[in-house]
């Protein structure tokens, strides 16, 4: 058992500093030598609606979250109501005592449906429908309330002239950290790491930290053990969006086009902030060469997603590593152009961040429901790669890989991700650059009649590009030169050439890049999954193993062309197979049935848009193994 393993939720209004509060917690613990991981949950709204951060701090690597939480930090009047179910006897509930008389009707930001559900619960348990009632509800579940007057503490620390609401995040974080037992110096350093070294800010925050820690010290209603400080290593704090941006830049991205959409736009926004940098050119290249001292990445906000992918496709045909990023609604608009990239064998990368659909659906919530759509997007038949990543360290490598795949095989690649991944925070080490390989197309010898679409055994023609060769591209069926033709024999030959790439891809991508097989060689239960649930599943495996249950995970990354033989082999290592995904129909299981002729009978699914947690996965596996249920729907999350 780890000595330190703490889950906490910090809840408050969108735009009210929740993000910085969570950043303070993660950075402070990292500086003190701990590992941390978190996910941000928020409404499709700019300011005011309830948002929260779920963070876990541990003394060993962490990449999943659990309910009930150990600490609930309520920075607004909505948090105690909506997180009422997230607590147990181990939970400390920190809340603003000045708000206890708030009636649920007065919580203007709360949606009527949510209100109704909470009112029902409070009434059924015989509690008032006030904030005090919600606290009592949690008390009945065994939680320890920890009332604090935020206003009094801020006024005592900074005087009456400073608005208490502005300091709610640093005060909340300080109180939380004091309650968790982190020495205050690390909280101060965490705050400095988030807000920088501006003198006035630092001084104010220092006073806030002190008042938070003093309060906890003098109000000893809960037991606090000071945490030991551990040997620390400098780490990067990265979200999924940032990891993809970093992987792309390291992989050689030079042109990124996008139209803003949640949860994809943060990546492009991040790139815009890091688009001009000093390269490491190596010994042989003249460092005095002024013009190579800095390198740029051109990031362009297009007028819509159709333009974004059109620009990316043609940009890629100049030999530039080009990508575009989007989410379901934008990806829908890209379908026609994807086929164009397919028939013209264009090495373009589309980063697809899934969110709740259909239509606008749940714009800021998680989903894995676009797998089938990604595989089938675009009319007609053409080769494309659909490749999945699930966590930050993996995603950095994969963002380089997908460029390599696109160029080596000259196909469009859809890099499929999800919102949970995009909005998760990881702590990672610097990269091992010697392990990062960049592989590109084979160029053709330039000649008068350059055959951009030369027929070959493996389907891959020598690459030709604008600015270097005289080539023609057309969305029509074409000859080896790229001119329009409807000749039936040429059509047949071109279809075979293009579709042969699917076999070439399966042959050439190393097995371990296609599917990861993790866990016991022979097991009692096999989980079949993809994307951001990897960390949760592996974390639950530790618990199962401690109970003597052997488990393994078939974690599929290459979704198209589907590695059927490999998946078949891995799925034969246990009798019970459970498909776990964030969608309604079990799309990966459908792919397995279609490609491997294996029927998957057991499902753990989630489609309410909230992050998957250890406890519900554990419960799901147990219900399937012990109670012989076939389908468990996970419903946690506010």
């Amino acid at each position, binding site marked *: 058992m780890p000595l330190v393993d703490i889950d906490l939720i910090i809840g408050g209004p969108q735009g009210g500093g929740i993000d910085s509060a969570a950043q303070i917690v993660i950075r402070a613990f990292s*500086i003190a030598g701990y590992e941390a991981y978190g996910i941000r949950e928020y409404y499709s709204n700019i300011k005011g609606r309830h948002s929260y951060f779920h963070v876990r701090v541990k003394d060993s690597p962490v990449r999943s979250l659990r309910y009930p939480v150990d600490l609930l930090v309520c920075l607004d009047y909505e948090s105690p109501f909506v997180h009422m179910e997230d607590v147990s006897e181990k939970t400390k509930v920190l809340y603003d005592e000045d708000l206890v008389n708030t009636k649920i009707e007065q919580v203007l930001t709360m949606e009527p449906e949510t209100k109704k559900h909470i009112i029902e619960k409070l009434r059924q348990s015989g509690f008032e429908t006030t904030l005090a009632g919600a606290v009592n509800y949690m008390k009945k579940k065994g939680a320890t309330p920890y009332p604090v007057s935020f206003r009094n503490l801020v006024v005592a620390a900074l005087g009456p002239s400073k608005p208490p609401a502005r300091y709610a995040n640093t005060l909340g974080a300080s109180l939380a950290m004091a309650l968790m037992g982190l020495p205050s110096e690390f909280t101060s350093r965490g705050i400095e790491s988030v807000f920088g070294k501006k003198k006035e800010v630092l001084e104010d925050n220092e006073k806030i930290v002190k008042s938070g820690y003093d309060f906890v010290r003098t109000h000893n209603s809960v037991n606090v053990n000071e945490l030991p400080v551990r040997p620390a290593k400098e780490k*990067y704090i990265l979200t999924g969006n940032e990891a993809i941006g970093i992987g792309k830049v390291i992989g050689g991205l030079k042109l990124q086009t996008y139209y803003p959409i949640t949860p994809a736009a943060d990546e492009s926004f991040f790139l815009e902030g890091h688009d001009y940098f000093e390269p490491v050119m190596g010994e042989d290249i003249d460092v005095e060469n002024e013009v190579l001292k800095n390198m740029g990445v051109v990031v*362009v906000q297009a*007028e819509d997603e*159709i333009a974004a992918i059109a620009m990316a496709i043609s940009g890629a045909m100049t030999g530039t590593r080009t990508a575009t990023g989007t989410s379901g609604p934008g990806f829908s608009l890209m379908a026609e152009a994807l086929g164009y990239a397919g028939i013209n064998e264009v090495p373009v990368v589309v980063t697809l961040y899934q969110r709740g659909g259909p239509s606008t659906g749940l714009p800021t919530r998680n989903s894995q429901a676009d797998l089938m759509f990604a595989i089938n997007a675009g009319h007609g038949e053409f080769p494309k790669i659909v490749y999945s990543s699930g966590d930050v360290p993996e995603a950095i490598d994969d963002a380089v890989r997908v460029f390599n795949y696109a160029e080596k095989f000259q196909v469009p690649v859809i890099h499929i991700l999800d919102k949970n991944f995009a909005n998760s925070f990881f702590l990672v080490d610097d990269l091992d650059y010697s392990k990062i390989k960049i592989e590109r197309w084979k160029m053709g010898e330039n000649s008068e009649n350059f055959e951009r679409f030369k027929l070959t055994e493996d389907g891959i023609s020598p690459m030709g590009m604008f*600015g270097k060769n005289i080539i023609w591209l057309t969305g029509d069926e074409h000859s080896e030169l790229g001119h329009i033709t409807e000749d039936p024999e040429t059509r047949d030959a071109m279809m075979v050439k293009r579709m042969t790439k699917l076999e070439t891809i399966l042959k050439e991508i190393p097995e371990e890049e296609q599917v990861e097989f993790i866990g016991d060689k022979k097991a009692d239960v096999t989980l079949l999954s993809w994307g951001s649930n990897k960390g949760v599943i592996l974390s639950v495996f530790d618990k199962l193993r401690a109970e003597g249950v052997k488990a393994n995970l078939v974690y599929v990354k290459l979704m198209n062309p589907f590695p059927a033989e490999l998946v078949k082999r891995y799925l034969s290592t246990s009798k019970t197979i459970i498909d776990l995904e964030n969608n309604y129909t079990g799309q990966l299981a459908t792919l397995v049935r279609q490609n491997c002729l294996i029927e998957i009978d057991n499902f753990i699914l989630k489609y309410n848009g909230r992050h998957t947690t250890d406890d519900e996965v554990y419960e799901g596996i147990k219900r399937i193994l012990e109670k012989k249920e076939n389908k468990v729907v996970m419903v946690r999350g506010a």
Partner: protein
Amino acid sequence: MSELNKKPEDFAIFSGIGCSAKTPHYINAPGMHTLHGRVIPFASGVKLANPNLTVIADGGDGDLLSIGAGHFVAAGRRNVDMTIIIHNNGVYGLTKGQASPTLPRGEKTKGLQRPNIFDSLNPVALALSVGYTFVARAFSFDVKNTKEIIMKAVKHRGTSVIDMLQPCPTYNDVNTKEWYEKRIYYLDKDPTWDPVVKVASSEESEKKYLQAIQKSLEWGDKIPLGVLYQNDLVPSFGDRISDHISNYFEVPPSESPIVNSEGDPIARMEKIFGDRLIRR
């Protein structure tokens, strides 16, 4: 091409989908026959990645002003250095003669069952109002003049638009060659006509703009041809990029190395993303 002193590889010719879209396949220069309505973003992408190429985008009036109208508007705001030719024939040629956005209401061309019940839009006025920095009109049967206008458009640094009046003998029996020949006249025959903005954001530039708008409204008995507006003082999109990425033209995206002499990536975490490092 040779008059511009360029090799075929220095060009990239784009087209949308329509009768006019076969153009790239008839030119011995790199070409891209793209999607219906999307010629502008495809053409822009190549230029962004390799600003050293000379880019020309051909589209039908349906292509550029109906399905691709959003891109047409956006391109005016970007001012990417390229030339857009609107092959304006009043109809959707390739799909058998439906009314295009430039066909006036009440006209009944051969391909229509009844007179057109849509109002037409004015491509020149539209182009002017969304910020194009070079706007001209030409008549395809006057090859010499058309060539001159194309040359001027290509030389302009910024997006040039040419409204190319182009009869469609198959489906448009209203706006025929003869119909146009009776009406067209050349603006540059008038020695006082000067469409070029010479001083930035001055009274003069507003005057040039208004004079062009006024000319754009002339349609009927008299149809003006030639350059209606030209403003070389607006920075091209590439110039705007190079304000921030100063070696953008010298080392454009397509020419940037991505691995160093040891074969390792030239981009490094600590050099670029150091702001995400939790420092102690």
